[in-house]
Each structure stands twice: as C-alpha cells, then as structure tokens.
C-alpha cells in the first residue's frame, strides 16, 4: 500500500491555529524566547565589543596585524638579525589588498640616559607616516610632537619613562645600543615629544626615533628589523596572512598577531566558545518553558490527536505537526528577538560608559567605554542554537503525542 502524501498546508494550519488556541500561554513563551534571544545577542555584542577593544589596544602596542622578521629575531632581537627592505613579490603583496598599510622598522634593545637616571628601552626606528597609517595615534602625544620624518633627529618617549628618567620635553638624552660588530653605538638626542599609552609598561619601554637616524647610529645601510602590516580588520587576518608568508619566502619569518600575542589570540578563541556556552545556558533555561508549553498543549488535545489518528493520520505526521508548532513558536521568538536586538544594540554602538568599573579592566587593555558590536554571525549562531536545540527539546512531547493509541485517546476526558 503506497503511503499517502498529505498536504503540508494542513499540518501548517493545524500547527499555527493550535499555537494561538491558548494565546496567553503562547505569548508568555514567545516573550521568554524573544528576551532569551535578545540576551544571547546582546551578550555576544558586548563581549565582542570588549574583545575588539582589547585586541585593538594590543595591536596598537604591537602594532601591525602581521609582522615579518629575520628567523632568529624573536630569540635575539638585536641588530644582528636584521633584514633588507621589502622588494619583489613581497613588496608587490604589501602594495595591494587586503593589505591597507605597512611600514618598516628598525627595532633594537638599547639604553636611554638622562642626566639623572638611565633605563633599558626598546628603540624603535620608524617612518612616522607609516606608523600613523598602521595605528599609532598622534593624539596620544601629550607634549611636543611626533617624529616628522625618518631622518628626524629628535626622540619621542613615553610619559612614564620621562618620569623615571626625571627628564622632560626639550631636554637631551643619550641612547645607546650595540652595532653589528658588537661595539657600543650611542647618540645624544633631544626629547621632541612625550606620548601616553593605555598601559604604563608601553610608556616605559618604547622610545621612537627616526629610522634613518637609528640606522646611521648603528652604522647599517637601509636595513630593518621588521615589516609590520595591517588589513584593517584583525579578525580577517587568519584568512590571508599565509599569502604574505608565501610572498615573503622562507628567509623571513611571517607571524600574525594571534601568534605574536598569544594572549589575545586565545581570547578570540575563548570568545567563540564562551558565546556558545552562554547561548546554550540561556537556551536550557528557555527549554523548560518550551517543553512545558508543548506538553501542556499536547495534553490538552489528546482526544483531537486520537481523532486525527483514527481518521487516518499517520503517527509521524502527528509528530511533524507538534514539531512544526514548536518550530513556528521558535521562529517567531527568533524574529522578534533579532529585531529587538538590532533596535537596542545599534544605538548602544555609540558606546556605553563603564568608567565606574573600568579601573580593573584597564589591565586587560579595556578602555572606559564599551562599544557593543552587533555581528551577523552572532545573530546566526543564536538562531542556529535556538532552532536546533529547540526542535530537539520538542521531540519528546511530539514523539509522545505520536505514540497515542487512537481509541484510548478518543475516550480520554
């Protein structure tokens, strides 16, 4: 006997009308799903915004989403492990999308001495425009100015370093490092600018000088320690950093920010997993309500289910109908939850002032303003979690309904 194919319209009609039979109960459940979905997306947006802030702050310290070095530079960051300026395939890759900006630095350990004290620092021989394009913010210069060219003869130091050296803008300091022949190379420089950074450790360690000036001091030609580049969106780096590595060849070590700063890289992974955990936890709370609603809905119409089965409805169609009912409720809740999320999160993207609780977060690289970020992938993830788990939670009451004996169901009161 060939199995009849029922019109899906009847299942949809029954599911939809049964949903609104007890409209108060449905509205309560719908509200719960809507708020749950909204909470999932809001939480994800806030966490994503917080993480963006942390990574952006971290990248401002690096800076550059991808860096290229001599293979031994990370073990021994001295002038010995220097590289040539980019050329050929690498230069071509750096000058086209997805790369939006790049710069070359000479970065060596050194000493800085004022007339009162001295400190170990990281001397950054930079090209000012390239650094700004890469993320250095000129407004972090709190006194004086930033460097003007690669041949600038001044030095820009952090506020904390100036404090430690008991020096100030306009005063002269001496910087020292080792040249390629392990001889001491030094030079007197005037402090032309003082910058502030989110972290005091950054202010203490990084001292900016013109790249050409530092090269001359160390007696090297136009050679550098690293090439740093950005593509504008740090989350996309994963997709294309290996293209740069390929263009750079085996003579250079190419590393994305996730490797250069393992802490931040781990945070991104944690975010994805944490989002799913939070969504599942919120959903589990919802699931009790959903299952209760369906159990009650099924329990209230045992006779009807018995009648439909007596008239020739196969058990699996009863199952589909209850699942469809649950699916419709979930779909409506998801729709409303997503609309509510967009309506409430978009205005918050201007920033939420969290200065009252920001002091402790500063160590993690957070600022005093949180910028929630509404991401399509978070909305899709919450939709997936709610739909998959929602339908899974509905299987039991639906299956129970499909197992009724028609005659027993028809005689129930």
């Amino acid at each position, binding site marked *: *006997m060939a*199995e*009849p*194919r*029922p*019109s899906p*319209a*009847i299942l949809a*009609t*029954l599911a939809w*009308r*049964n949903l609104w*039979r007890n409209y108060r109960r449905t509205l309560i459940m719908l509200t719960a799903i809507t708020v749950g979905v909204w909470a999932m997306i809001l939480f994800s947006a806030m966490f994503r915004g917080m993480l963006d802030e942390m990574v952006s702050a971290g990248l401002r310290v690096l800076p550059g989403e991808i860096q290229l070095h001599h293979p031994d530079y990370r073990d021994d960051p001295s002038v010995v492990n220097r590289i040539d300026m980019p050329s050929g395939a690498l230069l071509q890759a750096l000058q086209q999308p997805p790369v939006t900006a790049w710069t070359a630095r000479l970065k060596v350990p050194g000493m800085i001495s004022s007339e009162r004290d001295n400190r170990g620092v990281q001397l950054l021989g930079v090209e000012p425009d390239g650094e700004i394009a890469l993320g250095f913010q000129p407004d972090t210069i709190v006194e004086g100015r930033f460097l003007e060219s690669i041949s600038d003869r001044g030095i820009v130091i952090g506020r904390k370093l100036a404090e430690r050296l008991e020096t100030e803008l306009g005063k002269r300091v001496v910087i020292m490092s080792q040249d390629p022949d392990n001889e001491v190379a030094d030079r007197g420089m005037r402090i032309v600018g003082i910058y502030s950074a989110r972290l005091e450790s950054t202010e203490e360690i990084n001292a900016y000088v013109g790249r050409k000036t530092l090269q001359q001091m160390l007696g090297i030609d136009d050679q550098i320690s690293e090439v740093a580049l950005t593509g504008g969106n740090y989350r996309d780096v994963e997709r294309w950093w290996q293209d740069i590595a390929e263009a750079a060849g085996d003579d250079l070590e190419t590393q994305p920010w996730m490797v250069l700063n393992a802490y931040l890289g781990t945070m991104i992974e944690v975010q994805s997993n944490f989002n799913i955990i939070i969504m599942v936890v919120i959903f589990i709370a919802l699931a009790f309500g959903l299952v209760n609603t369906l159990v009650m809905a099924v329990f209230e119409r045992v*006779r*009807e289910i018995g*009648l*439909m*089965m*007596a*008239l*020739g*409805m*196969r*058990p*699996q*169609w009863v199952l589909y109908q209850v699942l469809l009912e649950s699916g419709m409720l979930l779909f409506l809740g998801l729709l409303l939850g997503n609309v509510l999320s967009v309506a409430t999160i978009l205005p918050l993207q201007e920033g939420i002032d969290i200065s009252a609780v920001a002091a402790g977060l500063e160590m993690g690289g957070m600022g005093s303003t949180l910028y929630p970020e509404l991401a399509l992938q978070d909305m899709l993830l919450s939709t997936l979690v709610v739909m998959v788990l929602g339908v899974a939670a509905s299987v039991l009451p639906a299956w129970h309904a499909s197992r009724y004996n*028609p*005659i027993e169901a*028809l005689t129930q009161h």
Partner: protein
Amino acid sequence: MTAISCKALCKTFTQGDQIITGLDKVSIDIDAGEFVCLSGPSGSGKTTLLNAMGGLDKPDSGEILVGTHRVDQLSKGDLADMRLRNIGFVFQAYNLVPVLSAQENVEFVMQVQGVAAAERREKSLAILAEVDLAGMEDRRPSQLSGGQQQRVAVARAIVSDPTLVLADEPTANLDSKTAVQLVELFLKLNTERGITFVIATHDTRVMDYCRRLVRMVDGRIVSDDRRAGKAAGD
C-alpha cells in the same frame, strides 16, 4: 461482495483484578451496501467490535478482513492508511477539530490523502450542501449546534467515498428530531451511494431504520436478523 468479514474475534480487557470479556469468538460477514445496526446493552461489546472492524483496536485473536486488507495483521502506519482510504468514522461526541472550520473539517481527510485543493474545495462544498449545511462552511464547531456538528462529522466521513462508514452511538447526544434526520441522512447515503453502514447503537429510533439488526450480549452475537427497515420519511 463482502465488505467486512470477522472470524472468531476475541478481546479481553483488564480492569483492576477483573478480566472483562469484550468479544467472545465473534464471527460476522457484512456485505457491501448493507445498513447494519449493532445493538445491545452497555458492555455488550458493540463498540469493541466496531473499533476492531475499523482497526482502532486490535483483537487478541481472530481475523478481520476489510475489503482485501487483513486488519488484524497491519502495522500502525498501514492501519492508518487503511482507515484513511476505506473507512469513514462518525463518533458519539461529534469529534470535530475545534480549530478548523466546518469546511476545513470536511476537507481534513482529503488533505491527509493529498487531494488537490480545487478538488477538495469542490467536493467539500457539495457534501456540505448535501447534508444541509450550505452557508455554514466557515463556522467553527463551537458555532454549530450538536446536530449540525454531527452532520459535519457525517460529511467528513463520506466525502472521500469510503466503502464503509462505522458510526458509534451517533445519535446519543441528539434530540429526537435531529436523530431521525441524521439516520435518514445515513439511509439516503446508503441507498444513493451504496456505502456500507455499520452503526453501534442502543437507540431504537436508529434500529427502526436498519435492514439488519445484530444483537450482542456479553461480547457474543445473540441474534442476527435481516428485515425491512423503515424508509426515509416514514
């Protein structure tokens, strides 16, 4: 041609410590086009026999043949298909789907059968007119009287041209006038369409019209009389 054939059906129920005999070696053959009443006091087994014939309940032993289908051997799904294609049911308590209109209730079986929308609509409107419910197609069951609801149930039972209609105490909740109208409707459908009717009832108003009266007591058939029943309008 035999519409339904039962051989040595046995069925017992357990109620507490008691074992109740529902059917005790019941055998009966009903030909196509017959108008049969199963009568007897409460607990005599008439509803049990009706449910077994319709594949709603399985006998403990015995054979049931509806058309070419061995009802007692079919799986749950195949039983559903057999009921869908061959049998129309009319129950005591109207048993309409409350969220569907009269027309949608009538179309329900055809929708499950997968009949096209235009054909469903045409057939359902015609059958509702035949049971004097024209103009009430969009009413929900709660907006219909008991008699009207039962006529919708009859329309649903016959709309897909079943070979057999099983009715369980169809007049139990109806007043005399409505009960007579309903049984005359059954008779008309039996005469004009040749549909076989098996009606479990202890309503004498219904029994008066039947052409074959089967009396049951304690799960056994005690008499099986063929006679000239009342005609519609008598």
